């Protein structure tokens, strides 16, 4: 027995809720960002949570019949139905008097940006009372790394080989969701779990469609050492590849500014999926990252709290 236990005081402080709802033994790859995202999300939301999970890495991570790792009820649904299944769940809960339960649609980028976009748009337009979380690892990882519309310019995937790497920008899912006039949309990053937890708790306090775009690296698909997951994720935000911000009722708030952003080249060189890029490709990507960041700043200037209306 150590001193802390006898005195009841602990010589350490936790910055996240201590309770673990996600159980170990799940089937995520070593260093999986999506597993971290779920662990944090459940810490934020608590046990009164029901998940709809479509085809995505998490359909496997949760474990095969007769097991589950999530620790909360999960309905494994069809690929394109995370939002529509969750809509059904939340309406049933409301009808059965369980307003204390949070319904979460939990999908990958393919199930959100691509095949599930129609159902997501429908649920957003109806303002169904769900939290929709997309954990974005920028490709179809569960089927073995095929490009999705969340795959960034320049990336290798098995369907965008290095000789013909992904051309064109990643779809701006946040702007699509903001265009639906939903009450809350935010980006978050597994490298900033306190921010992620705070945003999910804020989302939980709001009714209607709430959308979280969570950045979740995939060592397998991005070709980096599993130990670098958090470093790469952090760098994505530090170099403005993945800014973290919130849009509440149309009001933009940038949660983090980088006085001197890390060059995008630093981020790219850590991942095998970008190793084929030439200097001019890297410069092009840097120019687009800068442009998108400036655009976001202007959105905050125009539609942020300081804009004053």
């Amino acid at each position, binding site marked *: 027995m150590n001193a802390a236990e006898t005195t009841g005081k602990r010589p350490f402080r936790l910055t996240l809720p201590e309770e673990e709802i996600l159980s170990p*033994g799940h089937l995520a790859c070593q260093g999986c960002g999506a597993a*971290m995202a779920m662990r944090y999300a459940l810490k934020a939301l608590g046990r009164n949570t029901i998940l709809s999970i479509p085809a995505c890495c998490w359909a496997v991570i949760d474990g095969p019949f007769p097991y589950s790792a999530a620790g909360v009820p999960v309905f494994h649904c069809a690929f394109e139905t995370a939002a529509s299944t969750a809509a059904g769940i939340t309406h049933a809960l409301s009808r059965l008097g369980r307003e204390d339960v949070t319904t979460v649609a939990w999908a990958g980028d393919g199930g959100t940006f691509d095949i599930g976009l129609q159902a997501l748009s429908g649920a957003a337009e109806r303002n169904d009372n769900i939290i929709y979380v997309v954990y974005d690892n920028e490709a179809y990882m569960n089927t073995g790394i095929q490009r999705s519309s969340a795959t960034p310019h320049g990336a290798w995937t098995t369907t965008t080989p290095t000789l013909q790497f992904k051309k064109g920008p990643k779809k701006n899912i946040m702007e699509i969701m903001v265009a639906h006039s939903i009450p809350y949309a935010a980006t978050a990053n597994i490298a900033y779990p306190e921010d992620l937890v705070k945003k999910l708790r804020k989302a939980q306090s709001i009714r209607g469609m709430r959308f979280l775009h969570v950045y979740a690296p995939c060592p397998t698909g991005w070709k980096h050492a599993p*130990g670098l997951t958090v470093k790469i994720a952090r760098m994505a935000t530090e170099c403005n590849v993945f800014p973290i911000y919130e849009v509440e009722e149309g009001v933009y708030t940038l949660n983090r500014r980088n006085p001197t952003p890390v060059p995008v080249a630093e981020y790219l060189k850590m991942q095998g999926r970008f190793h084929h890029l030439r200097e001019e490709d890297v410069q092009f990507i840097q120019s687009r990252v800068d442009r998108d960041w400036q655009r976001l700043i202007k959105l905050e200037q125009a539609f942020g709290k300081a804009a004053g209306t």
Partner: protein
Amino acid sequence: MKPKIRKDGTVAVEKTGDLPDMPVSMGSMKSNKTASWRSIRPVIVEARCKRCMICWKVCPEPAIRPGDPPVVDLDYCKGCGICIAECPFDAIDSEKEGK
């Protein structure tokens, strides 16, 4: 539906009659020890550990319990090395498994 749970936490579903009507989980993935996935083992060096609990925070499994010092649960640690990479005090050594 009352599943038979074995001592190791696994669910006994051997006969058709043991099965529910659809695939509904009856046990926790906790019965699935993932130690065998590991080729490196994180070893927390107590003397260097400042009890910041970042290793606990970043573990994707979770396989680290907060404590004084924190404890790695080697039944589940997959050896991803995030805790090693993220420790700001270089207090977690990496040891090769099966050496």
